[in-house]
């Protein structure tokens, strides 16, 4: 084997290795065969990167991660809302309590995979509202988490936290509207409600936020449990 061919095959193997195992077992040899017959330019590399991300986002069996993330986030949101509600006076703008910051920080982190899971329910035809929604929601939650971490470390607090939370919640609301448009009405209404909770006064807003995410988590858990028992059915029958 020439050095060029060896290097090419190594490069092909590297790119095929970006795809998940189950995908590689089904399509890996075929993709490698095509790549060995194709010029390996920048366009091809970008196409492969994009497709590998797509394959990881769309596994043959849905991942339980978004369900677990939503459940964890809803419990943290409820604990955070309770901590605020238990205060004798309302918290200062933008409405966080120092002692409860770790709760909302972990909640916001857990919401990122939960939101990605909800976006994936829109399928390939996610539409402009769904796409804008997930970009705003994911970016907003990541920046919100960084801002909350900075606040917890007493580095910064205030405008950035509030701005990031507003973007995150606007994205959640848009994603909720997109889900309603795809016929997933209850989930969509709850998600839009969680997003709109951001415009309510902090005490009431956090309670509404926790209630909406608790509803989402329960819906996802029931659906996942139903799907799991349906998948087990034929094995048990057999």
């Amino acid at each position: 084997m020439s050095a060029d061919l060896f290097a090419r095959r190594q490069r092909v193997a590297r790119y095929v290795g970006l795809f998940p195992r189950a995908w590689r077992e089904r399509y890996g040899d075929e993709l490698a065969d095509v790549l060995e017959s194709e010029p390996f330019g920048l366009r091809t590399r970008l196409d492969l990167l994009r497709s590998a991300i797509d394959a990881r986002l769309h596994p043959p069996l849905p991942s339980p991660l978004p369900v677990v993330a939503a459940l964890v986030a809803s419990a943290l949101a409820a604990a955070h809302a309770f901590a605020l509600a238990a205060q004798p006076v309302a918290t200062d703008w933008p409405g966080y309590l120092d002692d409860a910051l770790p709760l909302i920080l972990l909640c916001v982190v857990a919401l990122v995979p939960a939101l990605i899971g909800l976006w994936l329910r829109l399928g390939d035809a996610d539409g402009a509202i769904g796409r804008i929604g997930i970009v705003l929601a994911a970016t907003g939650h990541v920046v919100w988490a960084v801002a909350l971490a900075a606040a917890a470390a007493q580095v910064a607090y205030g405008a950035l936290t509030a701005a990031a939370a507003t973007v995150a919640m606007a994205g959640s609301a848009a994603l909720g509207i997109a889900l309603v448009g795809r016929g997933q009405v209850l989930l969509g209404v709850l998600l839009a409600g969680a997003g709109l909770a951001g415009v309510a006064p902090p005490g009431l807003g956090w309670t509404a936020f926790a209630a909406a995410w608790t509803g989402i988590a329960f819906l996802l858990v029931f659906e996942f449990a139903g799907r799991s028992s349906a998948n087990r059915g034929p094995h048990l029958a057999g």
Partner: protein
Amino acid sequence: MPADLAGLGRFAEPSLAILLALSEGPRHGYAIMVAARQLTGEPLGPGTLYATLARLEANGLIEALPVQDRRRPYRLTAGGAAALRAQLEGIEGIVQAGLARLSSSGGSSPTTS
């Protein structure tokens, strides 16, 4: 099974090209890619090719045949042929309506005033 390809979002266009490429008979991945490029004049990347093949297969529009010398051919299913026909008839309707409108307006170019 989707009656049209709209539910495939950004994969609708590559799906149409792949179904067209398979309408002449079974082909393997590289041959599909080359035929799709010739048919549409647009590049079809290998990653997009297999992401689309996976969706078409999951939706029952194409089916995989046994591997031949490391290459696996695919062929249209009856559902895939029906979806392709529906898509082409939809396009034909748009083309005919557009040409009729152009003819009724005398084929003049649109003006900016």
